[in-house]
Protein backbone atom coordinates (compact mmCIF):
# COMPACT_ATOMS: atom_id res chain seq x y z
CA UNK A 1 0.00 0.00 0.00
CA UNK A 2 1.26 3.48 -0.80
CA UNK A 3 1.89 5.97 1.96
CA UNK A 4 -0.94 8.20 0.78
CA UNK A 5 -3.49 5.39 0.81
CA UNK A 6 -2.28 4.31 4.21
CA UNK A 7 -2.71 7.80 5.55
CA UNK A 8 -6.16 8.02 4.05
CA UNK A 9 -7.28 4.71 5.54
CA UNK A 10 -5.94 5.80 8.92
CA UNK A 11 -8.04 8.93 8.72
CA UNK A 12 -11.19 7.13 7.55
CA UNK A 13 -12.45 6.03 11.01
CA UNK A 14 -12.20 9.61 12.26
CA UNK A 15 -14.01 10.96 9.22
CA UNK A 16 -16.74 8.37 9.58
CA UNK A 17 -17.33 9.00 13.28
CA UNK A 18 -17.01 12.77 12.98
CA UNK A 19 -20.76 13.57 12.71
CA UNK A 20 -21.63 11.51 15.76
CA UNK A 21 -18.60 12.85 17.59
CA UNK A 22 -19.61 16.43 16.85
CA UNK A 23 -23.13 15.80 18.08
CA UNK A 24 -21.74 14.21 21.24
CA UNK A 25 -19.40 17.13 21.85
CA UNK A 26 -22.04 19.70 20.96
CA UNK A 27 -24.94 18.48 23.06
CA UNK A 28 -23.17 16.71 25.90
CA UNK A 29 -19.55 17.68 26.51
CA UNK A 30 -19.87 21.44 25.97
CA UNK A 31 -23.01 21.91 28.13
CA UNK A 32 -21.44 19.67 30.77
CA UNK A 33 -18.25 21.73 30.80
CA UNK A 34 -20.35 24.91 30.97
CA UNK A 35 -22.29 23.52 33.92
CA UNK A 36 -19.08 22.71 35.76
CA UNK A 37 -17.76 26.22 35.03
CA UNK A 38 -21.06 27.73 36.09
CA UNK A 39 -20.71 26.10 39.51
CA UNK A 40 -17.68 28.31 40.18
CA UNK A 41 -19.48 31.56 39.32
CA UNK A 42 -20.92 34.02 41.83
CA UNK A 43 -24.58 34.87 42.23
CA UNK A 44 -26.46 37.54 44.13
CA UNK A 45 -30.13 38.39 44.59
CA UNK A 46 -29.76 41.70 42.80
CA UNK A 47 -26.58 41.34 40.77
CA UNK A 48 -27.42 37.99 39.11
CA UNK A 49 -24.69 35.69 37.81
CA UNK A 50 -21.13 37.06 37.86
CA UNK A 51 -18.63 35.16 35.73
CA UNK A 52 -15.84 34.99 38.30
CA UNK A 53 -14.00 32.02 39.77
CA UNK A 54 -14.91 31.47 43.41
CA UNK A 55 -15.56 28.42 45.59
CA UNK A 56 -18.55 30.00 47.35
CA UNK A 57 -21.13 27.47 46.09
CA UNK A 58 -18.93 24.48 46.81
CA UNK A 59 -18.14 25.86 50.24
CA UNK A 60 -21.82 26.28 50.96
CA UNK A 61 -22.63 22.70 49.90
CA UNK A 62 -19.76 21.35 51.97
CA UNK A 63 -20.60 23.23 55.16
CA UNK A 64 -24.38 23.61 55.22
CA UNK A 65 -25.86 20.38 56.67
CA UNK A 66 -28.98 21.04 54.57
CA UNK A 67 -27.14 19.78 51.49
CA UNK A 68 -25.64 16.82 53.30
CA UNK A 69 -29.14 15.82 54.37
CA UNK A 70 -30.38 16.24 50.82
CA UNK A 71 -27.65 14.05 49.31
CA UNK A 72 -27.90 11.48 52.09
CA UNK A 73 -31.65 11.23 51.45
CA UNK A 74 -31.08 10.91 47.71
CA UNK A 75 -28.68 8.01 48.10
CA UNK A 76 -30.74 6.38 50.88
CA UNK A 77 -33.79 6.39 48.61
CA UNK A 78 -31.73 5.09 45.67
CA UNK A 79 -30.22 2.29 47.76
CA UNK A 80 -33.56 1.19 49.22
CA UNK A 81 -35.20 1.37 45.79
CA UNK A 82 -32.39 -0.79 44.41
CA UNK A 83 -32.82 -3.33 47.22
CA UNK A 84 -36.57 -3.45 46.69
CA UNK A 85 -36.27 -3.99 42.92
CA UNK A 86 -33.62 -6.68 43.46
CA UNK A 87 -35.71 -8.49 46.08
CA UNK A 88 -38.80 -8.48 43.88
CA UNK A 89 -37.27 -8.38 40.41
CA UNK A 90 -34.83 -11.30 40.68
CA UNK A 91 -37.45 -13.87 41.74
CA UNK A 92 -39.84 -12.34 39.21
CA UNK A 93 -37.35 -12.90 36.38
CA UNK A 94 -36.64 -16.44 37.61
CA UNK A 95 -40.32 -17.37 37.71
CA UNK A 96 -40.85 -15.73 34.33
CA UNK A 97 -37.97 -17.73 32.88
CA UNK A 98 -39.51 -20.99 34.08
CA UNK A 99 -42.88 -20.26 32.50
CA UNK A 100 -43.54 -21.93 29.21
CA UNK A 101 -44.15 -20.46 25.77
CA UNK A 102 -47.17 -18.24 25.52
CA UNK A 103 -47.36 -17.29 29.20
CA UNK A 104 -43.72 -16.28 29.16
CA UNK A 105 -44.12 -13.84 26.28
CA UNK A 106 -47.36 -12.51 27.75
CA UNK A 107 -45.86 -11.74 31.14
CA UNK A 108 -42.69 -10.37 29.58
CA UNK A 109 -44.94 -7.93 27.77
CA UNK A 110 -46.71 -7.10 31.05
CA UNK A 111 -43.35 -6.28 32.61
CA UNK A 112 -41.99 -4.31 29.68
CA UNK A 113 -45.28 -2.62 28.84
CA UNK A 114 -44.90 0.15 31.45
CA UNK A 115 -41.69 1.26 29.70
CA UNK A 116 -43.94 2.50 26.92
CA UNK A 117 -45.82 4.76 29.32
CA UNK A 118 -44.34 8.03 30.53
CA UNK A 119 -42.79 8.03 33.99
CA UNK A 120 -44.97 11.01 34.85
CA UNK A 121 -48.15 9.10 33.99
CA UNK A 122 -47.03 6.08 35.97
CA UNK A 123 -46.14 8.15 39.01
CA UNK A 124 -49.37 10.13 38.82
CA UNK A 125 -51.12 6.77 38.98
CA UNK A 126 -49.74 6.33 42.48
CA UNK A 127 -50.87 9.83 43.37
CA UNK A 128 -54.38 9.01 42.12
CA UNK A 129 -54.48 5.89 44.28
CA UNK A 130 -52.89 7.21 47.46
CA UNK A 131 -53.05 11.01 47.15
CA UNK A 132 -54.49 12.31 50.41
CA UNK A 133 -58.24 12.16 51.15
CA UNK A 134 -59.18 11.93 47.49
CA UNK A 135 -56.90 8.99 46.63
CA UNK A 136 -58.95 6.06 45.38
CA UNK A 137 -57.52 3.50 47.82
CA UNK A 138 -57.56 5.91 50.71
CA UNK A 139 -61.18 6.81 50.01
CA UNK A 140 -62.18 3.15 49.86
CA UNK A 141 -60.33 2.20 53.05
CA UNK A 142 -61.72 5.16 54.91
CA UNK A 143 -65.29 4.61 53.76
CA UNK A 144 -64.98 0.95 54.82
CA UNK A 145 -63.78 2.16 58.18
CA UNK A 146 -60.47 0.32 57.94
CA UNK A 147 -58.51 3.54 58.20
CA UNK A 148 -59.28 6.80 59.92
CA UNK A 149 -56.84 8.95 57.96
CA UNK A 150 -55.23 8.43 54.55
CA UNK A 151 -52.27 6.07 54.24
CA UNK A 152 -49.12 8.18 54.55
CA UNK A 153 -47.77 7.79 51.03
CA UNK A 154 -47.50 11.20 49.40
CA UNK A 155 -44.56 13.31 50.60
CA UNK A 156 -42.97 10.32 52.34
CA UNK A 157 -39.72 8.53 51.59
CA UNK A 158 -41.55 5.21 51.69
CA UNK A 159 -43.96 6.42 49.03
CA UNK A 160 -41.11 7.68 46.92
CA UNK A 161 -39.23 4.38 47.21
CA UNK A 162 -42.31 2.34 46.28
CA UNK A 163 -43.12 4.53 43.28
CA UNK A 164 -39.49 4.57 42.13
CA UNK A 165 -39.20 0.78 42.51
CA UNK A 166 -42.30 0.45 40.35
CA UNK A 167 -40.81 2.65 37.67
CA UNK A 168 -37.39 0.93 37.78
CA UNK A 169 -38.58 -2.68 38.00
CA UNK A 170 -38.36 -3.46 34.24
CA UNK A 171 -34.64 -2.64 34.23
CA UNK A 172 -33.93 -5.10 37.03
CA UNK A 173 -36.11 -7.84 35.56
CA UNK A 174 -34.50 -7.45 32.13
CA UNK A 175 -31.02 -7.51 33.56
CA UNK A 176 -31.63 -10.67 35.62
CA UNK A 177 -33.49 -12.18 32.68
CA UNK A 178 -30.42 -11.69 30.50
CA UNK A 179 -28.26 -13.43 33.12
CA UNK A 180 -30.74 -16.32 33.27
CA UNK A 181 -30.49 -16.79 29.50
CA UNK A 182 -26.80 -17.56 29.93
CA UNK A 183 -27.55 -20.43 32.30
CA UNK A 184 -27.03 -23.94 30.99
CA UNK A 185 -30.58 -25.30 30.59
CA UNK A 186 -29.46 -28.57 32.19
CA UNK A 187 -27.74 -26.96 35.17
CA UNK A 188 -30.64 -27.50 37.56
CA UNK A 189 -30.98 -31.11 36.47
CA UNK A 190 -27.24 -31.57 36.98
CA UNK A 191 -27.47 -30.23 40.52
CA UNK A 192 -30.56 -32.32 41.19
CA UNK A 193 -28.88 -35.51 39.96
CA UNK A 194 -26.10 -34.85 42.45
CA UNK A 195 -28.64 -34.78 45.27
CA UNK A 196 -29.46 -31.09 45.69
CA UNK A 197 -32.98 -30.06 46.75
CA UNK A 198 -34.84 -27.05 45.24
CA UNK A 199 -33.70 -24.60 47.94
CA UNK A 200 -30.08 -25.70 47.62
CA UNK A 201 -30.22 -25.41 43.84
CA UNK A 202 -31.43 -21.82 44.06
CA UNK A 203 -28.98 -20.84 46.79
CA UNK A 204 -25.86 -22.64 45.60
CA UNK A 205 -26.30 -22.88 41.81
CA UNK A 206 -28.74 -20.28 40.48
CA UNK A 207 -28.07 -17.32 42.78
CA UNK A 208 -24.29 -17.16 42.29
CA UNK A 209 -24.74 -17.31 38.54
CA UNK A 210 -27.38 -14.59 38.25
CA UNK A 211 -25.65 -12.35 40.81
CA UNK A 212 -23.79 -10.42 38.07
CA UNK A 213 -27.17 -9.77 36.43
CA UNK A 214 -28.67 -8.61 39.72
CA UNK A 215 -25.69 -6.35 40.34
CA UNK A 216 -25.63 -4.78 36.89
CA UNK A 217 -29.39 -4.29 37.22
CA UNK A 218 -28.69 -2.71 40.61
CA UNK A 219 -26.21 -0.27 39.07
CA UNK A 220 -28.75 0.79 36.45
CA UNK A 221 -31.56 1.14 38.99
CA UNK A 222 -29.34 2.93 41.51
CA UNK A 223 -28.03 5.53 39.08
CA UNK A 224 -31.46 6.13 37.54
CA UNK A 225 -33.09 6.42 40.98
CA UNK A 226 -30.44 8.74 42.39
CA UNK A 227 -30.82 11.08 39.41
CA UNK A 228 -34.58 10.57 38.98
CA UNK A 229 -36.57 13.77 38.74
CA UNK A 230 -40.20 13.15 37.77
CA UNK A 231 -41.09 10.61 40.45
CA UNK A 232 -39.50 12.49 43.40
CA UNK A 233 -41.01 15.72 42.09
CA UNK A 234 -44.53 14.29 42.03
CA UNK A 235 -44.44 12.12 45.16
CA UNK A 236 -42.07 14.28 47.24
CA UNK A 237 -43.00 17.68 45.86
CA UNK A 238 -41.33 20.69 47.48
CA UNK A 239 -41.65 19.20 50.91
CA UNK A 240 -39.36 16.20 50.37
CA UNK A 241 -36.53 17.24 48.10
CA UNK A 242 -33.79 15.09 46.65
CA UNK A 243 -30.66 16.23 44.79
CA UNK A 244 -32.32 16.36 41.37
CA UNK A 245 -35.36 18.35 42.54
CA UNK A 246 -33.06 20.55 44.58
CA UNK A 247 -30.99 21.47 41.53
CA UNK A 248 -34.21 22.12 39.63
CA UNK A 249 -35.47 24.47 42.32
CA UNK A 250 -32.18 26.35 42.47
CA UNK A 251 -32.27 26.82 38.71
CA UNK A 252 -35.93 27.68 38.20
CA UNK A 253 -37.25 29.03 41.49
CA UNK A 254 -34.36 30.67 43.32
CA UNK A 255 -32.70 31.39 39.97
CA UNK A 256 -29.37 30.69 41.68
CA UNK A 257 -27.92 28.89 38.67
CA UNK A 258 -24.38 28.56 39.99
CA UNK A 259 -25.55 26.79 43.17
CA UNK A 260 -27.86 24.53 41.12
CA UNK A 261 -24.95 23.74 38.83
CA UNK A 262 -22.77 22.84 41.81
CA UNK A 263 -25.48 20.47 43.14
CA UNK A 264 -25.89 18.88 39.70
CA UNK A 265 -22.13 18.51 39.24
CA UNK A 266 -21.70 16.93 42.66
CA UNK A 267 -24.53 14.48 41.96
CA UNK A 268 -22.94 13.53 38.64
CA UNK A 269 -19.46 13.07 40.11
CA UNK A 270 -20.76 11.05 43.07
CA UNK A 271 -22.79 8.82 40.77
CA UNK A 272 -19.94 8.23 38.34
CA UNK A 273 -17.61 7.34 41.21
CA UNK A 274 -20.12 4.94 42.77
CA UNK A 275 -21.05 3.28 39.48
CA UNK A 276 -17.52 2.91 38.14
CA UNK A 277 -16.25 1.73 41.52
CA UNK A 278 -18.91 -0.90 42.06
CA UNK A 279 -18.67 -2.03 38.46
CA UNK A 280 -14.95 -2.67 38.88
CA UNK A 281 -15.61 -4.54 42.11
CA UNK A 282 -18.29 -6.69 40.49
CA UNK A 283 -16.18 -7.51 37.47
CA UNK A 284 -13.30 -8.60 39.65
CA UNK A 285 -15.47 -10.61 42.00
CA UNK A 286 -17.38 -12.37 39.22
CA UNK A 287 -14.62 -12.65 36.64
CA UNK A 288 -15.26 -16.38 36.21
CA UNK A 289 -18.99 -16.03 35.73
CA UNK A 290 -18.73 -13.06 33.36
CA UNK A 291 -16.31 -14.74 31.00
Amino acid at each position, binding site marked *: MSAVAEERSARAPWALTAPALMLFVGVLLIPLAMTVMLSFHDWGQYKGIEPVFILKNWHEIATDPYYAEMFWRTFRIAILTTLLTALLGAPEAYILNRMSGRWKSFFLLVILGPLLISVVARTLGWALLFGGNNGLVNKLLMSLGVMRSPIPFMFTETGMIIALAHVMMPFMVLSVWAALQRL*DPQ*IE*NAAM*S*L*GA*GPATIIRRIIMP*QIMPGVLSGAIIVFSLSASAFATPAIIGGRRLKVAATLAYDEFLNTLNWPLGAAVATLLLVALVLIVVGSNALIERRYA*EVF*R
Partner: protein
Amino acid sequence: MAYLELDRVAKQFGAQTVVDDFSLAVRKGEFISFLGPSGCGKTTTLQMIAGFLDPTRGAIRLEGKDLTAIHPAKRGLGIVFQSYALFPHMTAAENVAFGLEMRNVPRAERAERVRAALAMVGLAGFEDRHPRRMSGGQQQRVALARALVIKPSVLLLDEPLSNLDAKLREEMQIELRQIQRTIGTTTILVTHDQNEAMSLSDRIVVMSQGKIEQIGTPQETYEKPASAFVSQFLGKTNDFAAAVDRTATPARVTAGSWSAPAPAGLSGPVTVSIRPERIGFGDAGLSAKIVTRIFQGNHWLFQCDSECGPAIVIRQNDGKAQPAEGEAVRLAWRPEDMSVRARALA
Protein backbone atom coordinates in the same frame (compact mmCIF):
# COMPACT_ATOMS: atom_id res chain seq x y z
CA MET B 1 -31.45 -61.06 37.43
CA ALA B 2 -31.55 -57.75 35.66
CA TYR B 3 -29.89 -54.88 37.51
CA LEU B 4 -31.73 -52.07 35.75
CA GLU B 5 -34.96 -52.99 34.09
CA LEU B 6 -37.21 -50.99 31.79
CA ASP B 7 -40.55 -52.66 31.39
CA ARG B 8 -42.74 -51.54 28.47
CA VAL B 9 -41.89 -47.90 29.12
CA ALA B 10 -43.71 -45.30 27.03
CA LYS B 11 -43.69 -41.50 26.96
CA GLN B 12 -46.28 -39.29 25.35
CA PHE B 13 -46.23 -35.53 24.92
CA GLY B 14 -49.84 -34.69 24.20
CA ALA B 15 -50.90 -36.86 21.30
CA GLN B 16 -47.32 -37.54 20.23
CA THR B 17 -45.73 -40.80 21.35
CA VAL B 18 -42.01 -40.21 21.73
CA VAL B 19 -41.04 -43.54 23.27
CA ASP B 20 -43.18 -46.62 22.89
CA ASP B 21 -43.04 -50.07 24.44
CA PHE B 22 -39.41 -49.83 25.50
CA SER B 23 -38.29 -52.97 27.34
CA LEU B 24 -34.70 -53.62 28.31
CA ALA B 25 -32.87 -55.59 30.98
CA VAL B 26 -29.41 -54.26 31.83
CA ARG B 27 -26.96 -56.48 33.70
CA LYS B 28 -24.76 -55.08 36.45
CA GLY B 29 -21.56 -53.62 35.05
CA GLU B 30 -22.83 -53.64 31.49
CA PHE B 31 -22.14 -50.82 29.01
CA ILE B 32 -25.26 -50.17 26.94
CA SER B 33 -25.71 -47.66 24.14
CA PHE B 34 -28.96 -46.16 22.94
CA LEU B 35 -28.24 -45.51 19.29
CA GLY B 36 -30.47 -43.73 16.83
CA PRO B 37 -30.98 -40.57 14.80
CA SER B 38 -32.10 -37.39 16.55
CA GLY B 39 -35.72 -37.51 17.60
CA CYS B 40 -35.75 -41.30 18.01
CA GLY B 41 -36.54 -41.03 21.73
CA LYS B 42 -33.15 -42.08 23.11
CA THR B 43 -32.60 -38.95 25.19
CA THR B 44 -36.20 -39.03 26.41
CA THR B 45 -35.63 -42.60 27.63
CA LEU B 46 -32.44 -41.52 29.42
CA GLN B 47 -34.28 -38.63 31.05
CA MET B 48 -36.95 -41.00 32.30
CA ILE B 49 -34.28 -43.15 33.93
CA ALA B 50 -32.72 -40.01 35.42
CA GLY B 51 -36.13 -38.85 36.63
CA PHE B 52 -36.32 -35.54 34.78
CA LEU B 53 -39.34 -36.94 32.93
CA ASP B 54 -42.01 -39.32 34.17
CA PRO B 55 -42.96 -42.24 31.93
CA THR B 56 -46.56 -42.19 30.70
CA ARG B 57 -46.72 -45.97 31.00
CA GLY B 58 -44.49 -48.79 32.13
CA ALA B 59 -42.05 -49.32 34.96
CA ILE B 60 -38.36 -48.66 35.58
CA ARG B 61 -36.78 -50.84 38.26
CA LEU B 62 -33.33 -50.73 39.78
CA GLU B 63 -32.44 -53.93 41.65
CA GLY B 64 -36.14 -54.74 41.74
CA LYS B 65 -37.14 -51.41 43.32
CA ASP B 66 -39.46 -49.04 41.49
CA LEU B 67 -37.22 -46.17 40.40
CA THR B 68 -40.02 -43.87 39.25
CA ALA B 69 -41.26 -43.54 42.85
CA ILE B 70 -37.91 -42.04 43.90
CA HIS B 71 -37.22 -38.31 43.50
CA PRO B 72 -34.46 -37.62 40.95
CA ALA B 73 -32.30 -36.10 43.68
CA LYS B 74 -32.45 -39.35 45.64
CA ARG B 75 -31.84 -41.80 42.78
CA GLY B 76 -28.09 -41.67 43.14
CA LEU B 77 -27.40 -41.84 39.41
CA GLY B 78 -24.40 -40.16 37.82
CA ILE B 79 -25.21 -38.10 34.75
CA VAL B 80 -22.92 -36.50 32.19
CA PHE B 81 -24.80 -33.99 30.06
CA GLN B 82 -24.15 -33.11 26.44
CA SER B 83 -23.35 -29.53 27.46
CA TYR B 84 -21.54 -30.90 30.58
CA ALA B 85 -23.66 -28.49 32.71
CA LEU B 86 -20.71 -27.72 34.98
CA PHE B 87 -21.21 -25.06 37.63
CA PRO B 88 -19.27 -22.14 36.12
CA HIS B 89 -18.88 -20.31 39.44
CA MET B 90 -17.12 -23.24 41.09
CA THR B 91 -13.64 -24.64 40.52
CA ALA B 92 -13.13 -28.13 39.12
CA ALA B 93 -12.64 -29.49 42.64
CA GLU B 94 -15.75 -27.69 43.93
CA ASN B 95 -17.76 -29.06 41.03
CA VAL B 96 -16.68 -32.60 41.80
CA ALA B 97 -17.16 -32.10 45.55
CA PHE B 98 -20.75 -30.84 45.17
CA GLY B 99 -22.36 -34.28 45.08
CA LEU B 100 -20.35 -35.41 48.10
CA GLU B 101 -21.32 -32.27 49.98
CA MET B 102 -24.99 -33.03 49.31
CA ARG B 103 -24.34 -36.48 50.82
CA ASN B 104 -22.71 -34.94 53.92
CA VAL B 105 -19.43 -36.72 53.33
CA PRO B 106 -16.93 -35.46 55.95
CA ARG B 107 -14.54 -32.79 54.70
CA ALA B 108 -11.33 -34.86 54.85
CA GLU B 109 -12.82 -37.83 53.01
CA ARG B 110 -14.42 -35.47 50.51
CA ALA B 111 -11.08 -33.86 49.64
CA GLU B 112 -9.47 -37.26 49.21
CA ARG B 113 -12.23 -38.59 46.96
CA VAL B 114 -12.27 -35.43 44.84
CA ARG B 115 -8.51 -35.68 44.39
CA ALA B 116 -8.77 -39.35 43.41
CA ALA B 117 -11.64 -38.72 40.98
CA LEU B 118 -9.82 -35.89 39.21
CA ALA B 119 -6.66 -38.00 39.05
CA MET B 120 -8.63 -40.87 37.53
CA VAL B 121 -9.81 -38.68 34.64
CA GLY B 122 -6.31 -37.31 34.18
CA LEU B 123 -6.90 -33.88 35.69
CA ALA B 124 -4.60 -33.98 38.72
CA GLY B 125 -3.35 -30.44 39.30
CA PHE B 126 -6.43 -28.80 37.75
CA GLU B 127 -8.34 -28.65 41.06
CA ASP B 128 -8.49 -24.84 41.25
CA ARG B 129 -9.33 -24.13 37.61
CA HIS B 130 -12.72 -22.74 36.72
CA PRO B 131 -14.60 -24.61 33.97
CA ARG B 132 -14.55 -21.66 31.57
CA ARG B 133 -10.75 -21.69 31.71
CA MET B 134 -10.66 -25.31 30.59
CA SER B 135 -10.81 -26.86 27.14
CA GLY B 136 -13.83 -28.85 25.99
CA GLY B 137 -12.05 -32.12 26.67
CA GLN B 138 -11.05 -31.04 30.15
CA GLN B 139 -14.58 -29.85 30.95
CA GLN B 140 -15.86 -33.21 29.80
CA ARG B 141 -13.45 -34.95 32.18
CA VAL B 142 -14.59 -32.78 35.09
CA ALA B 143 -18.20 -33.67 34.26
CA LEU B 144 -17.26 -37.36 34.24
CA ALA B 145 -15.39 -37.09 37.55
CA ARG B 146 -18.35 -35.21 39.07
CA ALA B 147 -20.72 -37.98 38.01
CA LEU B 148 -18.45 -40.84 39.12
CA VAL B 149 -17.28 -39.49 42.47
CA ILE B 150 -20.68 -40.15 44.08
CA LYS B 151 -20.28 -43.85 43.19
CA PRO B 152 -23.49 -43.91 41.17
CA SER B 153 -25.49 -47.11 40.78
CA VAL B 154 -25.84 -46.29 37.08
CA LEU B 155 -23.86 -43.84 34.97
CA LEU B 156 -25.92 -42.05 32.32
CA LEU B 157 -24.07 -40.37 29.46
CA ASP B 158 -26.09 -38.06 27.20
CA GLU B 159 -24.07 -37.61 23.99
CA PRO B 160 -21.05 -36.71 26.09
CA LEU B 161 -18.52 -36.71 23.27
CA SER B 162 -20.51 -34.93 20.57
CA ASN B 163 -19.00 -31.51 21.33
CA LEU B 164 -15.41 -32.69 20.95
CA ASP B 165 -13.36 -32.74 17.76
CA ALA B 166 -12.79 -36.07 16.02
CA LYS B 167 -9.33 -36.83 17.39
CA LEU B 168 -10.18 -35.94 20.97
CA ARG B 169 -13.41 -37.89 20.67
CA GLU B 170 -11.49 -41.06 19.80
CA GLU B 171 -9.11 -40.57 22.71
CA MET B 172 -12.00 -40.00 25.09
CA GLN B 173 -13.78 -43.11 23.79
CA ILE B 174 -10.80 -45.29 24.69
CA GLU B 175 -10.41 -43.59 28.03
CA LEU B 176 -14.10 -43.79 28.84
CA ARG B 177 -14.09 -47.51 28.10
CA GLN B 178 -11.01 -48.05 30.29
CA ILE B 179 -12.47 -46.12 33.21
CA GLN B 180 -15.76 -47.96 32.92
CA ARG B 181 -13.96 -51.33 32.84
CA THR B 182 -11.85 -50.40 35.87
CA ILE B 183 -14.64 -49.25 38.17
CA GLY B 184 -17.32 -51.49 36.68
CA THR B 185 -20.18 -48.98 36.85
CA THR B 186 -23.26 -49.94 34.88
CA THR B 187 -23.37 -47.38 32.08
CA ILE B 188 -25.92 -46.18 29.57
CA LEU B 189 -24.69 -44.03 26.70
CA VAL B 190 -26.97 -42.08 24.41
CA THR B 191 -25.44 -41.39 21.02
CA HIS B 192 -26.21 -40.90 17.35
CA ASP B 193 -22.68 -41.92 16.37
CA GLN B 194 -22.60 -45.59 15.34
CA ASN B 195 -18.81 -45.80 15.64
CA GLU B 196 -18.99 -44.54 19.20
CA ALA B 197 -21.72 -47.01 20.09
CA MET B 198 -19.85 -49.90 18.48
CA SER B 199 -16.46 -49.18 20.01
CA LEU B 200 -17.77 -48.60 23.55
CA SER B 201 -20.72 -50.86 24.18
CA ASP B 202 -21.32 -54.40 25.33
CA ARG B 203 -24.76 -54.15 23.77
CA ILE B 204 -26.42 -51.61 21.52
CA VAL B 205 -30.08 -50.67 21.55
CA VAL B 206 -30.86 -49.34 18.09
CA MET B 207 -33.87 -47.03 18.17
CA SER B 208 -36.00 -45.41 15.53
CA GLN B 209 -39.13 -43.29 15.94
CA GLY B 210 -39.54 -44.18 19.61
CA LYS B 211 -39.27 -47.91 19.10
CA ILE B 212 -36.49 -50.43 19.63
CA GLU B 213 -35.32 -51.80 16.30
CA GLN B 214 -32.77 -54.23 17.66
CA ILE B 215 -30.89 -55.06 20.87
CA GLY B 216 -27.61 -56.89 20.42
CA THR B 217 -23.85 -56.85 20.65
CA PRO B 218 -22.11 -54.45 18.27
CA GLN B 219 -21.18 -57.41 16.08
CA GLU B 220 -24.72 -58.79 16.00
CA THR B 221 -26.28 -55.48 15.08
CA TYR B 222 -23.70 -54.91 12.37
CA GLU B 223 -23.66 -58.35 10.85
CA LYS B 224 -27.19 -59.53 11.47
CA PRO B 225 -29.27 -56.35 11.31
CA ALA B 226 -32.85 -57.10 12.28
CA SER B 227 -34.34 -54.49 9.97
CA ALA B 228 -33.55 -52.37 6.96
CA PHE B 229 -33.25 -49.39 9.30
CA VAL B 230 -30.54 -51.06 11.39
CA SER B 231 -28.52 -52.13 8.39
CA GLN B 232 -28.72 -48.64 6.90
CA PHE B 233 -27.95 -46.85 10.15
CA LEU B 234 -24.99 -48.97 11.20
CA GLY B 235 -22.51 -48.39 8.44
CA LYS B 236 -22.89 -48.71 4.69
CA THR B 237 -24.88 -51.55 3.23
CA ASN B 238 -26.21 -52.88 -0.07
CA ASP B 239 -29.85 -53.90 -0.30
CA PHE B 240 -30.71 -55.98 -3.35
CA ALA B 241 -34.21 -57.02 -4.34
CA ALA B 242 -34.23 -60.81 -4.64
CA ALA B 243 -36.64 -63.72 -4.73
CA VAL B 244 -36.69 -67.10 -2.99
CA ASP B 245 -37.79 -69.98 -5.19
CA ARG B 246 -39.09 -72.83 -3.01
CA THR B 247 -40.07 -74.97 -6.01
CA ALA B 248 -36.46 -75.73 -6.77
CA THR B 249 -34.67 -78.36 -4.67
CA PRO B 250 -32.83 -77.22 -2.75
CA ALA B 251 -34.63 -73.87 -2.59
CA ARG B 252 -32.61 -70.97 -4.04
CA VAL B 253 -32.46 -67.21 -3.55
CA THR B 254 -31.80 -65.28 -6.72
CA ALA B 255 -30.88 -61.63 -7.37
CA GLY B 256 -30.25 -60.94 -11.04
CA SER B 257 -27.65 -63.38 -12.24
CA TRP B 258 -26.47 -64.12 -8.70
CA SER B 259 -27.93 -67.13 -6.94
CA ALA B 260 -27.35 -69.15 -3.78
CA PRO B 261 -29.09 -71.78 -1.62
CA ALA B 262 -31.94 -70.09 0.22
CA PRO B 263 -32.09 -69.88 4.02
CA ALA B 264 -34.99 -71.69 5.65
CA GLY B 265 -38.29 -70.00 6.40
CA LEU B 266 -38.61 -67.39 3.69
CA SER B 267 -40.26 -67.48 0.32
CA GLY B 268 -41.29 -65.08 -2.40
CA PRO B 269 -39.83 -61.56 -2.67
CA VAL B 270 -37.01 -60.81 -0.22
CA THR B 271 -34.31 -58.22 0.37
CA VAL B 272 -30.73 -59.43 0.43
CA SER B 273 -28.56 -57.19 2.58
CA ILE B 274 -24.78 -57.38 2.26
CA ARG B 275 -21.99 -55.20 3.64
CA PRO B 276 -19.75 -53.61 0.98
CA GLU B 277 -16.55 -55.12 2.45
CA ARG B 278 -18.00 -58.64 2.12
CA ILE B 279 -18.47 -58.40 -1.65
CA GLY B 280 -15.71 -59.63 -3.91
CA PHE B 281 -15.09 -59.45 -7.63
CA GLY B 282 -15.46 -62.93 -9.11
CA ASP B 283 -16.12 -64.86 -12.31
CA ALA B 284 -19.80 -65.41 -11.57
CA GLY B 285 -22.46 -63.39 -9.74
CA LEU B 286 -24.31 -60.12 -10.07
CA SER B 287 -23.11 -58.39 -13.21
CA ALA B 288 -22.17 -54.75 -12.72
CA LYS B 289 -20.11 -51.92 -14.14
CA ILE B 290 -17.73 -49.81 -12.06
CA VAL B 291 -18.87 -46.18 -12.10
CA THR B 292 -16.29 -44.60 -9.82
CA ARG B 293 -13.23 -45.90 -8.03
CA ILE B 294 -12.00 -43.98 -4.99
CA PHE B 295 -8.67 -44.64 -3.31
CA GLN B 296 -8.86 -44.19 0.47
CA GLY B 297 -5.44 -45.30 1.65
CA ASN B 298 -6.04 -48.62 3.37
CA HIS B 299 -8.96 -49.51 1.11
CA TRP B 300 -10.60 -48.89 -2.26
CA LEU B 301 -14.20 -47.78 -2.55
CA PHE B 302 -16.06 -48.79 -5.71
CA GLN B 303 -19.42 -47.42 -6.73
CA CYS B 304 -21.02 -49.80 -9.17
CA ASP B 305 -24.08 -49.89 -11.34
CA SER B 306 -25.42 -53.43 -11.01
CA GLU B 307 -28.40 -55.17 -12.56
CA CYS B 308 -30.13 -54.84 -9.16
CA GLY B 309 -29.42 -51.11 -8.81
CA PRO B 310 -26.47 -49.17 -7.36
CA ALA B 311 -23.98 -51.11 -5.27
CA ILE B 312 -20.93 -50.19 -3.23
CA VAL B 313 -17.92 -52.44 -2.77
CA ILE B 314 -14.99 -51.93 -0.41
CA ARG B 315 -11.77 -53.82 -1.10
CA GLN B 316 -8.78 -53.81 1.18
CA ASN B 317 -5.68 -52.28 -0.38
CA ASP B 318 -3.56 -55.44 -0.42
CA GLY B 319 -1.35 -54.28 -3.26
CA LYS B 320 -3.11 -56.36 -5.91
CA ALA B 321 -4.44 -54.85 -9.11
CA GLN B 322 -8.02 -53.55 -8.87
CA PRO B 323 -10.62 -53.21 -11.63
CA ALA B 324 -10.67 -49.81 -13.34
CA GLU B 325 -13.57 -47.40 -13.84
CA GLY B 326 -15.89 -48.51 -16.61
CA GLU B 327 -14.82 -52.14 -16.33
CA ALA B 328 -17.52 -54.83 -16.27
CA VAL B 329 -17.33 -57.02 -13.18
CA ARG B 330 -19.23 -59.79 -11.41
CA LEU B 331 -20.15 -59.25 -7.73
CA ALA B 332 -20.17 -62.30 -5.48
CA TRP B 333 -20.36 -63.00 -1.76
CA ARG B 334 -20.66 -65.93 0.62
CA PRO B 335 -24.26 -66.76 1.57
CA GLU B 336 -23.36 -66.69 5.30
CA ASP B 337 -22.31 -63.01 4.99
CA MET B 338 -25.70 -61.77 3.86
CA SER B 339 -28.93 -61.29 5.72
CA VAL B 340 -32.22 -61.98 4.01
CA ARG B 341 -35.45 -60.29 4.99
CA ALA B 342 -38.96 -60.64 3.66
CA ARG B 343 -39.88 -57.81 1.33
CA ALA B 344 -43.36 -56.43 1.17
CA LEU B 345 -44.67 -56.22 -2.39
CA ALA B 346 -45.32 -52.64 -3.39
